[in-house]
Structure formats: structure tokens, C-alpha cells
């Protein structure tokens, strides 16, 4: 030992078997834990598919296009809920996108002092933290009675349209859409704000340099440069709106009768699951699982498109 130089002693140090075992074991363990994500995803898919097999065989694709939901005669069709899911989430998106992007512009531009902007940004983040069941409670007792006169006005003015053909009688699709707007606004605002912040300042400077006004630069240079991130955020918000359950269940009325009217009680897939799954048995459980599978596919497609959009549309600045 004495004859060896320190460098040699270092190079010849053998790692004890225990140390190597711990190292390898830890690596394998963390790999196992990481692969749990996949096991869970596969498990979700298998559970929902397995549970819905009976209904899939019995109702086939008619399940998607018929709207009778009758536990007595055991005939089920989810069109009411699918229509409700698509209409509430798309309309909520149409309202929330201009609001969210406008807010994001307002808190990334230097129109107001930075401290006020920081407070506004924090408030939008806190809005995302409020549980959806609390928003649902608020929607039932505060928002819905407050907006009912407005909805009645819509009915008397535009009642000839099928979308406003019924009177507003409490819970319905319209209040559900509004509460969905509240729920997805923070997502759109947060992601739009991040995308706007990532636009290189040189673009803005160049726009100002050739004589653009502030809003000329925002609308024609900065927003187009941030469009990929904003679109991705909007798609994520759409996925969230489709899967959003509690607030919608509490305010949409959970009606199984189909109506085109936005003022009538309606249903969404997630609301139907929340209100019926606990008490269902037999083929109804299977029909609900089938509906859950449809919802899963819808959100999966939307979320994957969101990721694809962000990857494909993003402008590269180096």
C-alpha cells in the first residue's frame, strides 16, 4: 500500500459490492416508479374499456347518436350528454379566449405599474386554486339568480332561435357555460402570459423602430409570434372544460331529455357520471363507462393536438 502513489490508490479503489447494489437497486426502483405512470394509463384505459364492453356490444355506435336515456327499458344513448359536453366547452372557450388573451396582454404590457400587474397576475392564479365545487355552490346561489333576468331577456328577444327557445328556469346550459368560462380563464391567461413573455424583445423594438404604434406591434407582431403557445393553452383549456365535472354538475340541471336550447337544463358526460354512477347498476354502469370512454377519447385527442400544435407552430428564435 505504501508504495502506491495517491493517484494509483484512487484508480484502483474498488467499489464495495454493497455500494454497487444500492446504486443499481435505486436506479431500478426509480425506473419502476416512473413506469407506474404508464401502468396507470393502461389501467385506466382497460378499466373503462372493460367496463363498457357490454354496452358497446349492445348499443354499438347508435349510443353516440341517440338521445334516450331510459333505465326502465334499459335503452341508453348519450347524444344529450355529448352535445352538452361539446356545446358547453366550445361556447365557454369562445367567450374565454378573448377575455384571457386580453388580460394576458394587459398584464404583460407596461400600461400600468408593475406592482399592480403582479397583483392582477396573482389574483388570476388564485382563481385557479378555488375548488370547482365551491364555484358550483356560488353559481347555484349567487350567479344563476343574478343572470336569470338577462337570460329571460335573451329568450324574449331571440326566442325564435332554437338555442333560446325555452324560458330560463334555474339550472341550465347557459349558467354552466358561464361557470366554465370562470374555470378556464386562469389557464388561458397564464399560458398566454408565459407565451407573450417569451417573445424576444427585439421583435417589439423592431416594430417600434419602423413606426408601429403600441397596439400595431401587439396585434401584428407580438401576438402572431406567441400564437403557438397561446393556441396550445387554448386547446389545454378545451380539454379541461370538457372534463370539468363538479361546478357543471351542480348548475347544469342533469336532464336526460334532449333540447337544443341553451337555457334549458342539459347534461355533460362528466356531469352524468358524477350524478348517476354511484346509484347505477347492471347495464347502466356499462353505459356510463361507455360514456366515460367517449369523454376520455375526446380529451385525449384535444390534449394531443395541443402538444402537436405547440411543437409544430412554435417559431424558433436562437
Amino acid at each position, binding site marked *: 500500500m505504501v508504495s502506491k502513489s495517491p493517484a494509483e490508490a484512487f484508480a484502483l479503489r474498488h467499489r464495495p459490492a454493497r455500494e454497487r447494489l444500492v446504486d443499481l437497486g435505486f436506479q431500478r426502483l426509480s425506473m419502476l416508479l416512473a413506469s407506474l405512470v404508464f401502468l396507470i394509463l393502461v389501467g385506466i384505459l382497460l378499466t*373503462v374499456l372493460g*367496463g363498457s364492453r357490454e354496452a358497446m356490444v349492445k348499443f354499438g355506435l347508435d349510443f353516440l347518436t341517440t338521445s334516450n336515456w331510459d333505465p326502465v327499458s334499459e335503452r341508453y344513448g348519450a347524444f344529450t350528454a355529448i352535445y352538452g359536453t361539446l356545446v358547453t366547452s366550445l361556447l365557454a372557450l369562445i367567450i374565454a379566449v378573448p377575455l384571457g388573451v386580453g388580460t394576458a396582454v394587459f398584464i404583460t404590457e407596461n400600461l400600468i405599474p408593475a406592482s399592480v400587474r403582479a397583483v392582477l397576475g396573482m389574483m388570476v392564479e388564485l*382563481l385557479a386554486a*378555488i375548488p370547482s365545487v*365551491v364555484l358550483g355552490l356560488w353559481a347555484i346561489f349567487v350567479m344563476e339568480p343574478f343572470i336569470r333576468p338577462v337570460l329571460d331577456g335573451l329568450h324574449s328577444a331571440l326566442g325564435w332561435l332554437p338555442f333560446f327557445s325555452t324560458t330560463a328556469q334555474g339550472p341550465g346550459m347557459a349558467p354552466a357555460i358561464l361557470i366554465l368560462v370562470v374555470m378556464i380563464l386562469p389557464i388561458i391567461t397564464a399560458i398566454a402570459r408565459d407565451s407573450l413573455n417569451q417573445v424576444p424583445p427585439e421583435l417589439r423594438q423592431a416594430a417600434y423602430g419602423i413606426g408601429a404604434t403600441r397596439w400595431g406591434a401587439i396585434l401584428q407582431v407580438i401576438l402572431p409570434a406567441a400564437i403557438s403557445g397561446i393556441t396550445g393553452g387554448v386547446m389545454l383549456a378545451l380539454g379541461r372544460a370538457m*372534463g370539468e365535472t363538479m361546478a357543471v354538475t351542480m348548475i347544469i340541471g342533469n336532464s336526460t331529455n334532449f333540447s337544443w336550447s341553451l337555457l334549458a337544463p342539459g347534461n355533460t358526460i362528466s356531469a352524468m357520471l358524477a350524478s348517476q354512477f354511484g346509484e347505477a347498476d347492471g347495464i347502466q354502469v356499462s353505459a356510463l363507462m361507455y360514456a366515460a370512454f367517449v369523454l376520455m377519447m375526446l380529451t385525449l385527442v384535444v390534449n394531443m393536438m395541443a402538444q402537436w400544435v405547440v411543437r409544430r407552430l412554435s417559431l424558433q428564435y436562437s
Partner: protein
Amino acid sequence: MTTSFTDSTSVPEAHSGFQRSSLRFNPSLARNRWSLLFTGLAAAFAAICVLPLVLVLVYVLIKGGSLISLRLLTELPPAPGLDGGGIGNAIIGTFVVSLIAALIAIPVGVGGGIYLAEYSAGGWFSQFVRFGTDVLSGVPSIICGVFIYGLIVSTRFFFDQSYSAMAGGIALSVLMLPTVIKTTDEALKLVPNELRWGALGVGASKFVTIVRITLPSAFSPIATGVVLAIARAAGETAPLIFTALFSPFWPEGLFNPIASMSVLIYNFAIMPYEAQISLAWAASFVLVVMILAANLFARWLSRFTSS
């Protein structure tokens, strides 16, 4: 030329054909009117965006806050139609279920995040796991409930019990998992490589490097993400309605149905009794205060993140 300069002093007089009036800000110009309009619009949108938060907070604080008393926090909910009572069992239940969720999701999520950041060299497997994490975070929370119902509740997995606190906690942990993995992964990536090289250079094994050097230096961002994930899980209702169910009694162990504040709000809000509805407001108050406190705590934690 209609170029507008706001600073007119630096322009030399010598340019003869130059109109000095174009150097002054003229509010009646179309472009300035448009700018004013758009600024007003953006301000109005921001106000609309913040309005619901203010309104919800005001109503929850007034309607729920006025009901808070020691009795309310420590008693059981009344039978339908009776007055009085409290939400004591639901408060305990929310803590129990969130604790189960955290105890499952934190080790699994941190472990998975360690694999992604420390071991995988960007190969196909880690790409797969990252993709899976993104997909899992987009799965609607009600589907997590359906999954745990099919996996644990309907199969009577735990001691022949169907609905249980354990099933609810597991459902919430599925929801928390993607957040914990992502924050761990990103927090570990922020740790400078020099720290790892230094540790390996003085003869530490990979395991010791991760546990003694890398993880501690990424503690604050990981803790921030975990606190936010727990706060979110505590307010979730959809995965609990048919896993943990509800119970009007005190918790009876981990393998029986358990009450939680979020399910209490959902169940009581649609009851036709005044006493139940006011309990729902009180539970909202407690839940919102807890979640806002957790968010502020997370903000405070994130101040220790070195950038």
C-alpha cells in the same frame, strides 16, 4: 411621412420640409383612438377576469365566515331537517384523504422524477414517460374516480370493503402524480451539473450524490410543487364521490367510507334544507381558507429557489 416621435427636442431645425405638428402627440388621430380603444378593452377584460375571484371570495368569506364557530368545527352534521351541527368529520376526512394521497404520490412522483432527470439519457423510455405524464395530467378527474371505482371499489380490493377512505386517497394520488413528477423533473434539471460532478469526483456513489446533494439542493421547488398539488387534491370532489363516498359519522378507519369537505359541499348544496346549505357555505369557507393558505405557503417556499 406620418412617423410619430414623442420626443421633439432632438430634431434639428435644418430639415425644412419637416412638419413640426407631426411630432406632437395628437389624440384625435385614428391610430391613437384605436390604441385608446384597445387599451380600454384590455383593461375591461382584465377586470372581468378578476371579478369572479373577488365575488366568490367575498360571498364565501361573508356567508361562510359568519357561521364559523368552535361548535361548527367540532360537531357532526345534523340529520336532514334539523338545525345546528357542524362539519368536524368532514374536516378530519379531508385531512385523512389528502394525507393518504400525499403519502402515495410523493414517493412515487419524486422517484419517477428522479429517474427522468438523473438516469434517463433522453432515450425512448423517458420520452414515453414524459408523454404519459402529460396525458395523465389531462385525464379528467372524474375518470380517475371511475378508474379507482373499477379497480378497487367494485372489486372489494381492501378486506372486502367497497367504498373506503383508502380508495379515495388512491384516486387523489393518481391526480397528484403527474404534477409531482413534472415538478421534480424540472427542479432537478435546474441543479447545476457542477454539483453532481463534484460529488462524484470526491468518490460519492450515484445514489449518495442524488440523495445527499442533488435532491436537497432542489428541495424548495419540489416542495412548492408538492404543496400546490396537495392543495389542489384537497379541493377535488369528482374522484371522491364514488370512491370515498360520504359518511355522516366520525371516520371509522381507513377502510370505511369517509366524509370530506368537498363532497359535503356537493351533497348539501342540492339539499332543500337551510341548515345543510349553510353548512355547505361554512365548509367552503374552511376549504378556501385552507387552500389559499397552502398557496401562500407555496409562494413563500418558492422564494428559497435559487435561480
